[in-house]
């Protein structure tokens, strides 16, 4: 007795574990085209379709950009929800681990251009990604970078709004978040992009804090009390610029260093945006 195929996709191997379920490499039945299928695990029956899944799929439906991972469809098979996305076999973290050589300036420019364009496309739609890190930036075979994993992303309003401050991987977390601010803007993504940029140059994460307090101390070494830190204190910024310059001075040209310093402004108000960054002389 032949069985009616349930799904258009044939699951091959498990390639990862997302926030809300396992991710499989799959092929479209009858072709050799690969896709990534996220099986959504409904572990909390009291919320129905999980929040992260809902936010990720609904945002990816809105953001259509060559530097953002594409969603192909959402399939429902026997009550189970499967999000079908384009398949990219490598992420930036794996890439950095596998390639020990330093990246050329040309490659740095291309990578940063892709990242800024992709994140810029989110920001234009009023969406903060909130989890920018090399693991969530995927690489296509032709070298194009695509922003993925929108499980933490959300839409924000014009005015700073009250959000949870427990977002972003620790090493890429902006100082205002580390200091416990619940009011933040797209600037937190810009800080994370700055950290990724530095990581591409250093070939290792810029600030590898063991916990939140340690992370703050790496950024502001002589911090006295967390309550009294004033992020727009010019002296603090000068001192911080010194740390960054020391680490990167001989590894990147002046333009690149200048862009990093503009991305890593302690004061979120002064941090450069994606569209401003793309105009920066580093890309000329």
């Amino acid at each position, binding site marked *: 007795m032949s069985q009616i195929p349930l799904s258009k996709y044939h699951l091959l191997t498990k390639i990862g574990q997302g926030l809300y379920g396992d991710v499989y490499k799959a092929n479209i039945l009858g072709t050799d085209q690969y896709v990534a299928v996220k099986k959504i695990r409904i572990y909390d029956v009291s919320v129905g379709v999980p929040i992260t899944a809902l936010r990720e799929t*609904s945002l990816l439906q809105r953001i259509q950009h060559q530097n953002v991972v594409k969603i192909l469809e959402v399939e429902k098979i026997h009550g189970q929800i499967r999000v079908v996305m384009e398949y990219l076999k490598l992420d930036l973290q794996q890439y950095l681990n596998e390639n020990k050589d330093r990246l050329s300036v040309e490659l740095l420019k291309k990578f940063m251009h892709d990242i800024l364009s992709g994140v810029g496309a989110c920001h234009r739609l009023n969406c903060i990604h909130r989890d920018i890190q090399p693991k969530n930036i995927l690489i296509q075979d032709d070298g194009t970078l695509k922003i993925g994993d929108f499980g933490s992303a959300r839409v924000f*309003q014009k005015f700073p709004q009250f959000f949870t401050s427990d977002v972003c991987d620790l090493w890429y977390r902006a100082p205002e978040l580390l200091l416990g601010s619940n009011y933040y803007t797209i600037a937190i993504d810009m800080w994370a992009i700055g950290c990724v940029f530095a990581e591409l140059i250093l070939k290792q994460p810029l600030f590898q804090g063991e916990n939140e307090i340690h992370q703050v101390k790496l950024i502001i070494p002589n911090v006295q009390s967390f309550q009294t830190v004033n992020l727009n204190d010019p002296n603090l910024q000068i001192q911080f610029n010194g740390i960054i310059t020391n680490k990167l001075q001989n590894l990147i040209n002046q333009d690149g260093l200048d862009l990093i310093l503009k991305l890593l402004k302690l004061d979120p108000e002064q941090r450069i*945006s994606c569209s401003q960054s793309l105009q920066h002389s580093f890309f000329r």
Partner: protein
Amino acid sequence: NCYNKELFDSLINDQIDLGNCLLNHQIRDWVRGKMVDWMIQVFASIQSKNETTFFRAVNLMDVFLKNSQNYTDQDLYLIGVTCIFIASKIEDINCLKIKTITENLSHNKFSQYQIKQMESIILQTLNYDINFPTVYDYLQYLRYQLFGLSENQSVIVINE
């Protein structure tokens, strides 16, 4: 914010026409009106601090009705309740639990199963594209154009 122009363009492009959303249904205008009214009461009673959730719930309901057919006055209650449930998940930090929805909001008129089923019908009908700009986004944009970023200016002007 440097994205104002681009944001406004995307608001214009993403505009959805919600007029005549009851065209393909046996739902009377005033029943929908009553539903919206009830939603206002719900958000007031749970002391929601997040206005965006209410606007998303109403817009979700209208977009869903626009893209579906043959629902009746009786169905609207379940649709509305479920839209509140989905909107809360998109907008709130601590979203409404399904138990709160069934017990406190709809007084055990529906089972959790019914809500979850309606949720999946709505999501599939809209192809999960549920993060579209709502009326609130347009209002915010206009307010920004008129009064700038200051939080209180609009209030001051109205008081004057």
